[in-house]
Structures are given as C-alpha cells and as structure tokens.
C-alpha cells in the first residue's frame, strides 16, 4: 500500500529538479519518499522544486522529511522551493510549521 499511496514524478529542468508528489504521505511511506527524492537530486542541481499540488495528505512524518530534505539541500548549497496552491489540503499544514510563509502565487 505504501508504495501506491504516493507517486513521485521527477523531471529535470536544466539545473533544477522538479519533483511532483501525487497522493498522500504519512508515517507508512514518508521515509521511503524522502529517500527517493534525495536519490534523485544530483550534485550539480541548483535546487529542488517540490510541487505539492497533487498532495492530498501530509502528516508530521512527512513534514519531517521535508525539513530533513531542506536541511540536507542547504548543507549542499542547494535550494528547496515548495510549490503548493493556497487551496491545497496541505497548504495550512505547511503554513503552520513554517515551511511556507507567503500565500502561493496565482
């Protein structure tokens, strides 16, 4: 179930990695998803854009993965950009923990 709960779709756009997460992230798959994303970030990437528009659930285990990812990228001088529309079910959660600050554009 955990594999199918969330689908990771990765696309390289020049020096930026665009990772699209579709589905739900909870304790059962968070670590695996984190691993998958990390494995795809090349050393030469300038940063990662996480497109969470397709994410319908994100719990604290998932948040931990995002914080961890941001920490790791920062240590490598790479940027993490979280893209999420304001009407997304996970928008408020991300805002509560400070992963996003301003309302998403559009």
């Amino acid at each position, binding site marked *: *179930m*955990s*594999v*199918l*709960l969330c*689908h990771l779709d990765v696309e390289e756009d020049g020096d930026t990695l665009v990772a699209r997460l*579709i*589905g*739900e992230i*909870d*304790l*059962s*798959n968070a670590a*695996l998803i984190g*691993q*998958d994303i990390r*494995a795809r970030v*090349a*050393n*030469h990437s300038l940063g990662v854009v996480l497109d969470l528009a397709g994410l*319908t*659930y*994100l*719990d*604290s*285990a998932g*948040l*931990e993965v995002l*914080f961890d990812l941001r920490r790791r990228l920062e240590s490598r001088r790479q940027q993490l950009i979280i893209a999420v529309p304001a009407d997304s*079910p996970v928008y*408020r*959660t991300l805002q*509560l*923990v400070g992963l996003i600050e301003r309302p998403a554009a559009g």
Partner: protein
Amino acid sequence: MSSVTPRMQSEKDLAPPSRGVPDFHTLFLSAPDAYLVLAPDLTIVAVSDAYLRATMTERDAIVGRGLFEVFPDNPDDPEATGTANLAASLERALATRRPDTMAVQKYDIPRPESEGGGFEERYWSPLNTPVLGPDGEVELIIHRVEDVTELIALKQKGSEQEDEIYRRAQEIQAMNEELRAANVRLAELDQAKTDFFSNVSHEFRTPLTLLLGPIGDLLAAPDGLTAGQREALELAHRNALRLLRHVNTLLDFTRLESGRLAPTYEPVDLAALTREHVGAFESACADAGLELELHLLPLPEPVYVDRELWEKIVLNLVSNAFKFTLEGRLEASLSAADGHVELLVRDTGVGMPRVELERVFERFHQVRGRRGRTQEGSGIGLALVKELVELHRGEIEIDSAVGKGTTVRVRIPSGSAHLPAEAVVRERDGRPESISSQAHREEALRWIDGTEPSAATDGIRERHTVLVADDNADIRRYLERLLSPHWRVRLAADGRAALERARAEPPDLVLSDVMMPEMDGVELLKALRDDPVTCTIPVVLLTARAGETATVEGLEAGADDYLAKPFSAPELIARVRTHLELARQRTALAREQAARAAAERLAARLQNLRAVSDVAFDRLELDALLGVMVERVARIVEADAAAIELVGDDGSAAVRAATGVELDTAGFADAVTAAGRPVQLDAPRPLATAVGVPLVAEGRAIGDLLVGRVHPQPFADEDVQLVQMAAERVALAVEQAALRDTRRRISDPIHPGPLPELPGMQVAACWRPSGGRDGTGGDFYEVVPLADGRVGLAIGDVAGRGERPAALVSQLRSVLRAYAMEFGSPGEVVTRLDRLVRSSGEPRLVTLLYVLIDPRRWHVHLASAAHVPPLVLAPDGHASHLELAPSPPLGMVAGEREETTFELAPGSTLLLYTDGLVQRRGESLDDGFERLERAARSLPAEVDTGGLCDAVAAALLGDVAEDDAALLAAHVLPPEERLALELPAVPESLAPLRRALTHWLEAGGVGAGDVGAITLACGEAAANAVEHAYGPGDGSVELAAERDGEDIALAVRDRGSWRAQRGEDRGRGLMLMEALLDEVDVKVRPEGTTVLLRKRIAEEAA
C-alpha cells in the same frame, strides 16, 4: 468468498529439471552474492564464499565468533561508524522482523597479517533480512552485502575533478578578464593614436596612402611590368615608406612643439635598454660586413630617462652611423663619470667636413655630397636627437673627419634632481617591446642592396610559430624582420606553398597577403578552414587597401583580422600577439570544456547506474518493476522503444512490459537468447537501430530486454552496458517473483488476499472455477480504493487457460491498480490498458469493465471493453442491467475509450461479473441476463454482498460450471451516526483509518476544511500510537468519532505504554493537533493512552 489467483511462473522455472532436490548447502556457499548468516545474538553461523572473498577472511576463522569481534571498527579512522550503524540495523531487523536496508556504509575491514595487516578502506551496501521460525520469532538474520568501494571511489574522483575544473575555470575567467582589459587598453591607445594622427598628419598621410596603394597594387600584380618598371616602382615604394617614417619623426617634433610630448623619466638600466636598440642592428651590420663593437656594461646605478625618447636618440644615432659607413666598424659605448652618463656612437664612415658640423643639428639640414649607403635622408634626425637630449637636460657633441668617421657623444646628468619632479616616476613596468627599433633596423637592412637577410635567429622570445604568406619578397622579408624577435617565423611565397607548410606543420598563426598568384589569401583561408587540422589556426590577412572586396570576402570566409597596408609595426605586432593569445585561450577553454564534459558524463553515468540499480526496486511487484525498468532504460539510453520479453514454459516469448514505439518483437527473443550476449537486431520499422540483451537467470536465458531508436544513431557501448545492468536487475526480479509465486501457490492456490475494508461500502467477491484440470482460467477482478474516497472496481476475462493467460491477468491487475490511482477516469484507465494489451502482442481476447464508484454521491462512471454490463440491485428489490453501448475488446481500440455515467438510487448494490455466470451453450446471452435478474430479484432484501454473490452463483451455476466465473458486488451503506474502528497498530493502517474517517465526516455533511483538519489531527494521534505504544507488530489502535451538537468529538485509543517521544517531529505532531482542533487532551494511563479531540464544525458546512 473466494477469488482468483494470478499465476506467473511455474515451479519448473526454478528447480533443475529431473535431478531431484538441489544441494542447498552448496548453492548457498557458492551464491554469487556475499551472505553472512547470523544468530539473533549476532554470532556468525554461516558464510558464503563470496563473502569470504570480499572480506578477505577464512571460514574457520570467523564461523562461531561474534560479528563485531571479527569486524571491529578501524581504530585508525576516528569517524568510523560502521559497527554502530550495522548494530542499529541488525537491532531494527530483530525488533521489526522485517528486512532492513542500510545506506551505503564505510566499514573498513581488517587485512590479513599475511598481506600486511592493518585495515583496508571499503564501502558496503548491506541488507539485513530476518528469517522467522514457525513461532514468528527471529531465528536467523541473513546479512547480505555488496562491495561498492569502487563505485564510491569513482564518485569521489568525479567530485574532485569537478573542483579542479571549477578552479581552472576561475583562472581562465581571470585570464580572460585581463586579456579583455588589455584589449580595451590597446583599443584606447589605438583610438588616441588615431585621433592624434588625424589631427596632425592628415595632410601627410592621405597623399602617402594614395601613393602607396597604387604602387603596392602594381607591384603585387604577377606580371605586366618590365624589370625596369618594376625597379622604378620598387624605388618609389621604398621612398614612400621612408616618407612615412619621416612623417612619424615629424610628428614627434609636432608633439614636442605643441608641448604634447610630455616625457616621463624613470630609473632604467640604461646599458640594457641601449643594448636592446643597438642590438637591432647586429644582423644588418653582419650582412653589410661591418663590425659592431659594443661597450655596454651595466652602469653603477639606474639612470633617469624617458624610455621612448632614449630609444629615438639611440636609433637615430646608430642608423646615421650605419648609413654613412661603408666599411670598417660601428662602436657604441656607455660610461658614467662625475655625475653624468655618456653615450658614445662612433663610426669609421665617410665623415663630414668641419664646416658642416655647426649646422648638422639644424632641422632639414643635410650634408651635401656625402657618399653614403643612400642619398635618402630628411636631415631631420640629428636635430631631433638634440631636442630629445635637451629634454633630458643633457648635451650632444659631434666630431667628424672626412674619410675617417664620426663620433657623437651624448651626456645626460645622473640622478633625477635636475628633472621636473612631476615628470619623474620611481618605477614602471618594463615595456615589452621596442616600437621603432624594427622600423629603423628594417630601413637599415634595405640599404644593403641585394643582400638576402639571414635566417631570423635572434630574439625568439616565444615559441609560437607565425607562417607568413606573401608573394612579395620585400614584404616577406620585412614581415620576417618585424616578427622574428617575437616569434618563430616561416615564409611562403604564395597561398599554395603556405597551405602545404601549414598542413605539414601547423603554425600558431597565419599572416597572409590577400593578393597572391597560384592561390590567393582568401582561397588559402578557406582551405585552412576546411581542414580539421588547421581550422582553428588564427588567420590575419594583409590587404593593400582597406575596403577591398577581397577583404570583405576574407572576413566573411572567417579571417580573424585584417590589416590594411601601410600598417604600423607596433600595430601588426599587437594584433598578432592578441590573436595568438586569443587562440591560446580558445584552446585552453576547449580543453577545459572537454574535461568538464567528461566529468559530466561520469556524473551522468553514476546517476544512470543508480537509476537501474535502485534498492527501492526490491519493494516493487514484478510487473510494476518491469514497467519502471523499461521506462528508465528507455529514458537513460534515449531509446524510442524498449520492451522486456519473458520466455514462457512453452518456450515462446511474450512482451511483459513495453514503452515508446510499438515493437514487432517476433523472432528477437530467439536471436538474443541464442547469442547469449548483447546483439544488434534487424530493426523493424520505424526503428532504425535496435539492440537486444538477454535476461539470464541461473545461467539460463529467460527472456530479453530490447531497446531501439528511430534515428539511426547506434547505441554506444556505455548504453549497452547500462541495458545489461538493467537486464541483470530484471532477471533477478523475475527469479524472486517466481519464488514468491511458488510460495504463494503452495500456501494458498486460489485466494489473492482479502478485499480491502472500505468506509461506507461493503464489497464481496466470488470466484467459481469450472473444475477442469487444465489450469486456471483468465477471470479476474480488482478493488482499488482511491485517495479521494472513491473506489475503482474492475472485472475482466482473458480468454484461454494455463500459464500464459494467467501471466497476462497478473500483469493487467497490477498495471490496472497503478492506472486507477494515477488517472482516476475510467475512460483513461481503459485506454491505457488498450495500449498495454496491444503492446504485449498476446493475440487473446480480453474483456474488461472498469467502474468508478463514489459512495457519497450515488453515482458511477464506467468504461467497458466488450464486457458484460453490470447488474444494479435497487433498494426496492428491483434488478436490471445497465445499458452500455457496444465496445470492442481490450487492445482493439487505438483511440480514446468512451466513458458513461449512471445515477444510482441510494442504497443500491452493483454486481459485476464475467460471462461465465450467464453464458450457456445454445442460449442467447439475453436469456442469461434475464435469468440473473430473476435470481437477484428473488433474494431477501436484507442480504449482504457476500450473500448476494454466493446466492447468485449457486442459482446460476449449480455445482459444476461450464466456464470459470467471477463476481464482484458492491453495496453503498447509508451514513452512520457514530464511527468506531479498530485497526492493527501498523503504519499501513493509517490510510484506511483516514478514508473511513473522511467518509464518515463527509457523509455527515462536514465541510472540506474541517474534514482535512480532523483527519490530520486523528492521523497524528494514530501515528503516535503506531510508533510509540507497542513493540513491533503488536496491538491495535481504536478510533471513535461522534457528533456532539455542533462539535465532532473523537477519541484515539491504544492499549500500550508510550515510550519517550523522540525528536522535533513528534512535538510537531502535537503542535499540529493543537493548532488544527479546538481541544486536544492526551490521557496517559498504565493501561493505555487516549487522545481526546474536539472540533466545532463551521456553519456553512455543506
């Protein structure tokens, strides 16, 4: 309830045929992977040969001993974490009873004493797999490792190389900046000079150009001139050039007069400076048979002079001496005495009468009747010298006797006290080149009639070679003299000769006249550019006139620069220098870029290796893995088509996964498996090139992996290696799947596992085999809960019996699940399955019905592929079939599938089934439908879905069915007042818990925002219970929810004791609960923990 089991591989695939049971001990010892078997106390129980080899150990020395006793941390590596990480992983495996994959570890291993002792640096990719006994307890741990030391080394090398490249790129950038700045300075100087000339010497230069142009043209023409005419023209040409020099001298006067000549006095090594300028006459003197005697020993201290002016002084004096000396010698000496420095230039020349000496320093005075090398002379030289010496606050004396020679003495004061302070600088960078010495020397050489210049051997300061192409011997010589102090110079008399020389030994720069016989400069340029050996050599063209058509043509043909004659020597030197430097930079840049590209390729390769050997694949089902693998391989090697074929029991191959262009794979499997190695295939249209790699398991070819391209670019060796790696991975997965399949079949031949628990819905299924002995039929069903609360129901039928249809069924089921979750819409899902079946090449009839049901809205979307329509059982007992438009079977449609929507009466039951239920020999299908509707109508109203399936199957099939039949029934439950759930306390329970809660809340009219908040808070509470309440695998978590006025009140309960919370994340979970809900109360008691949650529901809830 009963159901269908897919079968993929038979046991025959695994066991060696007809040899009985294999010797598993030997198999284990000689397994290709490195295995260590550990007891739960981490004592080594068994070890494979590969492990012994990898760790340089002996079996007797390690079996029976503790793992960490045998493999301690490297004491010399203070950062060693190998034992700690491994211990943690083993503990996890013991505690969770699940395989634990470790990240790549640095774990150095002790080297045997016989090989020098100490530790050897190693990196490993370990996997710890517990082996459970019948009681569920861990009996053993299989510790599998893969030595990835080389991969890591390769990776580190890659990043070092990147650093180096970065550093060097920085250097190049800095150099480029300098060069750019130098070019800017040069351009500014050029500009200043140009301005000056246009202001001051316009009247001189314009007629001079008009004179030199036509004469140059006439001389450049290969024929049409008599020897006498040519001679006369050459004379005119030489004199025009001379005039140019005098213009320059006059300009110096102009500058002096106008006060624009502002000398800068700096301390210089005067002996060295003087030698540099006098030395320019060495070869001229040697050619003229004159002795040149120099006394230019270093002076005790630097002398303050203006370098440029001093140069003019020396050159004028020496060239005068040379001019009027036909035999004997020239002498130049430098001495210091009583606060002065004296330059003495003496010759044994014709001398001049005493009476003339008084007027010799007057401008334009020329001594009459003097026999010299030339009658030329403006009479301006000595006058200028006098002015220049006076600028240095010095004196000049001349002493001469007719027939004996002339002596000139220049005396200037030492030190700088006599000079205006603002014009004195203490130190300045040495000027790299002498501007006018070449012009003077060149002129001196011209005076030696008919003398061939010596090979330019003096003053080669750089090792660059300049190839000069000019048909005019004068110009050739002139250019050689000009360039040879700086570079090695080679000469060619026309374009063809130049091309031959350039090809034989490529020069660093070509300087070519445009107008030449045989092959002109533009043709030469084109020929050089066409040859890969010479195409990067900078080419500078010399033209007689600016704006000539040939010049434009030359620049268009890719000349790097052009110079119009007459050009100044410094300008030529500067341009040649610039282009040599630019070419050097270009070469260096190209080299850096090549190195960078190599490093990038290395990085990409590592990335690709990762992509095909991803450990996450271990978790995927075979068909999902084949799908992922085929996609990745296609992407990595840029294939337009890729396919995986597996050989079945009957020896024929079938496509199991494919992507891109549809492939006709007929015959490929045989060709590839026969070759036993990667082979080029006769690519079917529209492919232009194709390669097949065998899938080998246990030394036996089990299929092949094909890649093809539409464009005719063949696959590189590196691509083929990657495909091979992927093939190894696929082969391994196929073996594993076959093993799993066998195990499953031994334990339970029919049931694929229980149907999922669905909130708000009751589903049941039933499968009736016909009882034949010839294997399983191809009926199947699938229930897929989607994230948004909807449920996908699928039922299908693959014609035929046995392994092949079963394999297709298995593939369809797993792919269908993935498509259902990804695309949602039934039309899209069936369209995708069409493509899959088409590409599988299975000529089988497949029918399918996919229904998407939303239990909250009482309606269904569906798409059918020639399948029998579903039956709807209304709450009032009415039973009828949905009316579907005719549709072709799976794989027979290339376009989009149609999708139909039906509204259901609340409380309806939907029955999906295969035609085996209704089909009878000699009967129309409509009879069958009617029989089914009758049977359904006669059922009691309170029957549940399980009862419905069983009753209908019994009524229609009796005891023995003619064909297999499958039934799938779904009933939407009315909303409940109260929700109560109990689920095992494992992470996998969280998703069903959320679905149940979401459904219950939505059914109760709670708005989306509140549903999200409540679901997340409960999810956090349940996750806490899962993570902290129990040991692994124990216990359960309960959720109770009810409406309390305007509130929703919830309780999440476990019966364990919470262990200490760890880390920020758990705190974050509690924070989220408190932020999202109105009340959060955590009650920790010895018998368990209860989290009470409460939230007021927003008014506008719909």
